[in-house]
């Protein structure tokens, strides 16, 4: 097995320059994980330390701690480096508890489901 030399690391599109940094990982199902990148490979499999999931519903958000996570690369959409000197989120957003965000999430899901069924029932009207 050969290892990339240090000179290759910053030139290539490897995740090496993100090692030990706090990152935002966007997954294919829309989940957003925050954590410190400790390891990765060519498939973008990644190990995140002190990972947490950021759930955003409207203007509310919550960081749910998850611990150490290994993410399978195929689920990764984007890995972004967080600029810690900047505010991460617009100030209009408020942080709430996990229970509260789950409630908001459920309400949002029910609302979209309702919209879906309404649309189905109205389909005969040919709205679009």
């Amino acid at each position, binding site marked *: 097995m050969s290892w990339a030399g240090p000179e290759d690391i910053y030139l290539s*599109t490897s*995740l090496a320059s993100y090692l030990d940094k706090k990152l*935002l990982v966007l997954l294919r199902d829309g989940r957003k994980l925050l954590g410190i990148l400790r390891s990765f490979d060519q498939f973008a499999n990644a190990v995140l330390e002190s990972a947490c999931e950021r759930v*955003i519903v409207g203007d509310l958000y919550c960081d749910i701690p998850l611990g150490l996570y290994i993410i399978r690369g*195929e689920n990764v959409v984007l890995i*972004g480096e967080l*600029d810690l000197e900047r*505010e991460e989120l*617009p100030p209009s957003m408020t942080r709430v508890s996990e229970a509260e965000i789950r409630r908001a999430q459920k309400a949002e899901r029910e609302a979209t489901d309702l919209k879906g069924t309404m649309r189905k029932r109205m389909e005969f009207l040919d709205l679009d």
Partner: protein
Amino acid sequence: MLFFSYFKDLVGREVTVELKNDLAIRGILHSVDQYLNIKLENTRVVDQDKYPHMITISIFDWESVDTSFKILQFGLSVRNCFIRGSVVRYVQLPPEGVDIELLHDATRREARGG
């Protein structure tokens, strides 16, 4: 390897990467690899309203010697990012980044087998 070489030539240009989840990100192309994974710098989300986790609004107080005023900057908390090649739908290129002649020649060479 044609597209890999082609993207390597575009390093440093501003491109818009549209992902399969409809997220579109604009930024300076920093690097590509053989899977067409892309690294962007100075990224911004093209449709910011839909993706609150990607944006931030920060206010800088910028004081110069004789005048003092505020700059409202709409930026991104993610300034540079890695995009997995498999989730990319389109890459929109600057028109001046496309040299059709060169691309034709490279395509013919590739078709002949290198």
